[in-house]
């Protein structure tokens, strides 16, 4: 490991009266990464984040922040946290509210006032500083809450389902801001059940389901290790012989043939190397043999199983 872990969990479990929400979870969030905590609804994402923030206390295991065994509250000046359940004081003026929230994180009053103004301007809410939160639309309130998460210049920003309930325009603003924060060196940990988003944003991920880790690591590694389920094959000679190999259901579940080119889906438990061997033994000359990179979505469905993927975004694929 060359990079320091900003957040590290080791064997963390949390049980509630009726069920185990998180079971022996270990993960590392590298410094400077955009880290996605992925999983279907009810997988334990929010519980994990709440334990990192010390809102819940784990039943077992350790949580390290910035390389030390300490809790989220001790680091509150360095952490920005956007909970899944959004909420603001509805009767407070926007500016006063932002200053108050920054103060609870240890920021000075005057600095907070300046920073609040700067961020409100940046997100197009400059005219609303003296208005009550009540007067703002829902989207604007979400922006205000996002500002309160990042305005004290934290080193680590934790966002629980940050894109939930945002319209496309605000989602874009949110994404751009997250990316620019990451470029400035802020570590971002966010949870989502929408894989397409995570695929584009994340440099590292952890997929959890039913409270347990399914897979984690840098996104590229996860994809590489998962690989092998899709093959692209191009041939020069022996189309007929290749055809016989493609028909072998113990190796290939589905073949999409174009004469000298084929897209293959591996059979359950089949090894891509065995297919290459079989093709060569059959006297086929292979000019291209590529293990195609699966989408995160595909990985998610493959690893978690369609029955666990209750999120609407993955429902269609799971049935198809």
């Amino acid at each position, binding site marked *: 490991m060359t990079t320091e872990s900003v957040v590290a969990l080791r064997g963390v479990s949390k049980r509630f009266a009726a069920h185990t929400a998180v079971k022996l979870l270990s993960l590392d969030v590298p410094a400077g990464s955009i880290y996605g905590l992925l999983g279907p609804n009810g997988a334990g994402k929010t519980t994990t984040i709440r334990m990192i923030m010390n*809102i819940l206390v784990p039943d077992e295991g350790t949580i390290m922040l910035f390389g030390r065994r300490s809790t989220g509250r001790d680091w509150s000046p360095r952490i920005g946290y956007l909970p899944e359940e959004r909420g603001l*004081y509805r009767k407070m003026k926007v500016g006063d509210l932002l200053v108050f929230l920054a103060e609870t994180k240890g920021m000075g009053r005057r600095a907070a006032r300046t920073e609040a103004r700067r961020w409100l301007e940046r997100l197009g809410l400059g005219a609303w500083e003296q208005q009550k939160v009540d007067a703002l639309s829902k989207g604007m309130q979400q922006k205000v809450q996002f500002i309160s998460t990042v305005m004290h210049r934290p080193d680590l920003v934790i966002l629980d389902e940050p894109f939930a309930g945002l319209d496309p325009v605000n989602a874009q603003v949110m994404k751009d801001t997250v990316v620019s924060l990451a470029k400035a060196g802020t570590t971002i940990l966010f949870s989502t059940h929408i894989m397409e988003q995570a695929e584009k944003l994340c440099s590292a991920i952890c997929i959890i389901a039913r409270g347990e880790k399914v897979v984690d690591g840098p996104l590229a590694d996860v994809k590489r290790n998962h690989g092998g389920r899709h093959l692209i094959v191009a041939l020069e000679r022996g189309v007929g012989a290749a055809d016989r190999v493609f028909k072998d259901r113990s190796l290939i579940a589905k073949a999409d043939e174009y004469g000298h080119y084929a897209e293959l889906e591996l059979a359950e438990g089949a090894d891509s190397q065995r297919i290459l061997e079989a093709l060569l033994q059959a006297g086929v000359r292979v000019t291209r043999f590529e293990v195609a990179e699966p989408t995160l979505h595909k990985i998610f469905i493959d690893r978690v199983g369609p029955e666990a993927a209750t999120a609407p975004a993955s429902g269609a694929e799971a049935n198809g």
Partner: protein
Amino acid sequence: MGKVWVVIRREFVERVRTKWFIISTVLGPVLMFAFIAVPLIMARRGTRERAVAVVDGTSAGFGQRLAIALDQAPAIRATWLPTPIDQIEAAADSLVEMIGLKVIDGFVIATDEAVEDGRAEYRGANVSSPRDMETLSNLIEEAIFTERLGRAGVDAAVVRQARIPLQFRTLKVAGSRTTSSSGEGSFILAYVLWLLLYMGILLYGVNVMGSVVEEKSSRIVEVLISSLRPFELLAGKIIGVGGVGLFQFAIWGVFGAIMVDRRELVFRALGESVPGGELPAFPEVPLGTVLVFLLFFLLGYFLYAAMFAAVAAMTGSEQEARQAANAVVMLLVLPSVLMIGILNDPDGSMAVTLSLIPFTSPIAMPVRWAAAEVPTNELVMALAFLALALAGVTWIAGRIYRVGILMYGKRPALGELLRWIRAA
């Protein structure tokens, strides 16, 4: 501590800025004046005139003299009905009908028995009014008294002159010295203290409850708890809201002091003449009473605010919280219901007990203190019990609060609540 201060300031500033604060600061004294003055005025002014008939079955003209005496009294209009003794019941029947038609309020039956044995009878629609009956019986008694004096050959004027009404001045002795407070004055002071304590603790306690419910139902509590310890948040909230209460008392105190100081101007402005050139006696408010009041208000408020906060943390909405808070409010109402008993006998066993029990002492002790001499050891004991209870209640409430603010859904059963309290 720095973070607690941030919470205190928010609670204080946001509250003092509201219309609610301004209105209650202005209306508070008005309401309090109304609470005290209206019953007094009502009592003094009396109500409408009573129409009373005197059924005179007497033989020596006493009935007529009684009718005249009643008619001369304020608020009574009396009619004389000379009736032969055997016709009295018939007259009574027709008068009962007139009462039904609201022509008269009632009638007195006077016979020779009245003067001889001191017996008279009144039938009317207003017999349930103690004041009316007292007035009437006093007047009849006076008339009989005069009549009997006349028969005994004593000049009524001489007797009247001999009977000087007593002007009874009562002065409170406190701390081995006579104060300028009259008995009535210290009664009013005790009454005002009770009202301030009861309303203050209840209103500001409920305010704390509302604040907890707001944070919980708006879900902002999760953000707050990620940077503040639950106890920091709770302490800041209770202190901040309590500060608003003290601020309000300070405003009232300063204005009240100015009003008392300039009461001549105030009376003149109200168009009242200053009676006999002498200003009405105002109860002296000794510093000790102010200190006892503030001390018990603060401790009592902390005690109740902590309970209200715990109740709010257990529930999810304002209505649910109000319902659940009824038990807490009952504790607060108890000494208020028994207030008259405490004032009538400030050293009685009920008053002493209520002023020592932690949940009732915040109201009972200052009231007793204002009304009578309280031994120092009782004051110290009450404070010690209250402080102990406060420590215990805060500990339990803090634990319920810590778990409750992040729990949504069904209100916890007692068993679950105990688990919250035990949770490390």
